């Protein structure tokens, strides 16, 4: 029988390996490739201001961080409200180097890909240590344990002279093949770097989830007793989930430090931790696409709400305070509405849309 690789209809698998593929039809792959190309090309075509590029870079960094949180909370079922602290660990790894060696040391400016990986590694180690309580604690109690890590992190940074009591520690401009990345190129350069990281890590997560190392996470989430009986060490798996999540957070933190050319403690507070959790929930816990939708939705919402609040403040000066309160209010409202009406997040809308197009135009 002739194989049809383009449509879902008539696409017969003749080997198990064929069924493992990420893109089951050629159309899927083509659309995805085009989308990816578009992401790489559009900044060259359109004139974008630095300010807007910064917003986009921030969203991309949040995506990297949410990859980690989604693995931990969505797939392994271990709720963490200390994720911003893990991101902070990555950023402060660079800050440590900057404090000891100087902000323009060759390690930071020339070997930055290495430093990003190192920050991920440090994140993973700290993640594994913070994950140790998960051997004994479950559910809400574990949440409190992660919260305490968030507090410990904030206090450590705030009260140590070495980290300048949380004030911004500068990180120098990096070099690449064409020399120093100038002020003008900065945001565009990092857009491409972060985009590359997002794509590479995205595929890594996707691959992980179809392998034994991803399955065991879900097994521990669904039923850790049964997972134990199936030959999986549940304690080890939980600590490994924390380490994995710490790695992604660490990488995000290093990117954050390079993008903002400095590390300050106010980017890694409890508020940010909850923000990350909100991104994961709104995007869709336990789905990979959710890690993209969540950060985009939440950060865009924050931006728009700020614009609206400013606009309202111009015309109704008396209710300026109300407009300021609008931002946290809308943020909370969105989470509550999602939890009530679409607990599976935006990823579920995406799934419905995809199913529609899969069958289109032949609906049964």
């Amino acid at each position, binding site marked *: 029988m002739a194989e049809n690789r383009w449509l879902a209809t008539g696409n017969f698998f003749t*080997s*198990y*390996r064929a069924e*493992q593929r990420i893109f089951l039809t050629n159309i899927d792959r083509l659309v995805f490739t085009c989308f990816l190309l578009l992401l790489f090309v559009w900044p060259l075509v359109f004139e974008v201001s630095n300010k807007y590029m910064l917003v986009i870079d921030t969203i991309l960094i949040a995506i990297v961080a949410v990859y980690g949180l989604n693995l931990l909370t969505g797939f392994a079922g271990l709720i963490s409200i200390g994720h911003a602290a893990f991101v902070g660990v990555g950023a402060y790894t660079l800050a440590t180097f900057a404090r000891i060696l100087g902000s323009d040391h060759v390690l930071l400016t020339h070997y930055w890909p290495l430093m990003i990986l190192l920050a991920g590694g440090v994140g993973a180690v700290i993640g594994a240590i913070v994950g140790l309580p998960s051997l004994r604690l479950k559910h809400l109690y574990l949440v409190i344990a992660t919260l305490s890590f968030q507090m410990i992190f904030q206090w450590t940074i705030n009260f140590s002279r070495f980290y300048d009591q949380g004030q911004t520690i500068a990180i120098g401009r990096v070099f690449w093949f064409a020399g120093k990345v100038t002020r003008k190129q900065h945001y565009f350069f990092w857009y491409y770097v972060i985009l590359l990281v997002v794509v590479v890590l995205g595929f*890594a997560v996707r*691959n*992980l989830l*179809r*392998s*034994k*190392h*991803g*399955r*065991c996470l*879900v*097994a521990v*989430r*669904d*039923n850790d*007793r*049964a*997972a*134990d*009986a*199936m*030959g*999986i*060490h*549940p304690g080890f798996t939980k600590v490994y989930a924390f380490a994995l999540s710490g790695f992604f957070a660490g990488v995000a933190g290093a990117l954050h430090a390079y993008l903002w050319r400095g590390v300050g403690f106010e980017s890694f507070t409890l508020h940010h931790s909850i923000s990350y959790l909100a991104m994961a929930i709104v995007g869709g816990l*336990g789905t990979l696409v959710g890690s993209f939708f969540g950060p985009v939705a939440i950060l865009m919402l924050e931006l728009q709400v700020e614009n609206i609040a400013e606009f309202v403040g111009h015309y109704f000066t008396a209710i300026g305070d109300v407009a300021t309160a609008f931002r946290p209010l809308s943020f909370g409202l969105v989470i509550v509405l999602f939890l009530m009406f679409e607990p599976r997040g935006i990823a579920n809308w995406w799934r419905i849309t995809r199913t529609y197009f899969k069958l289109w135009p032949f609906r049964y």
Partner: protein
Amino acid sequence: MATLKVDDVTLSFGGLNALFGVSLDVQPGLITSIIGPNGAGKTSLLNCVSGFYHPTSGDIYYGDHKLNKASPHQVSIMGIARAFQNIELFSGMTVLDNLMLARHKNLHYGLLAAMVFFGKASQEESQNRQYVEEVIDFMELEPYRKQTVGNLSYGIQKRVEVARALTLAPQLLLLDEPMAGMNIAEKEDMVRFIIDIQKERDATVVLVEHDLGVVMDISDRIYVLDFGELIGAGSPDEVVKIPKVIEAYIGEE
């Protein structure tokens, strides 16, 4: 194949003895049943063997391995698989993933190989998928392969539970009430599966079951527990004649 030997096992929770001086042998290649009224300690005994509980005193041997302090994942690696009484499947995963998960110990690729998913990882996955497909074929689960387990009916979930234990390629299979809450037709199917598991897949089966008709029909050897103590042992014909067993099941006149 190894013999499972439970030697004078006592399991107590505080002052309560769930098991008291229980000794039994499970001979390889046979179907051994453990019966008894509710609360007799049948599941506690299985829990001791599969590592969820550790006996307070006494020893459990599987071949040369001592299982007293072994944890469930160590026990499962020795070739002892367990199907639970209350369905304990991974409800958010598909049937296929549930079964693939039981192949965990047979997949040897590392984390990096998994992230690249090329060569070794991909190859091992498809090889183990082959094994999983054999089990799916054996347990007649083909129509449900890609369905989320949580959405399946009770009878099918029970079957997936047994299939998952079978995917571990066990030498000793512990089945905890595989027929609870099933109708006659489903029970007949399950009995057929259990006999096939013993005959075709050369596994030793330990069956805990309340349906005495089924137990008497398919068991090679029966152990009867009551209030944590062993009150009878033998072939089906012998067991029904033991006065204590009759007393426990039917009561005194």
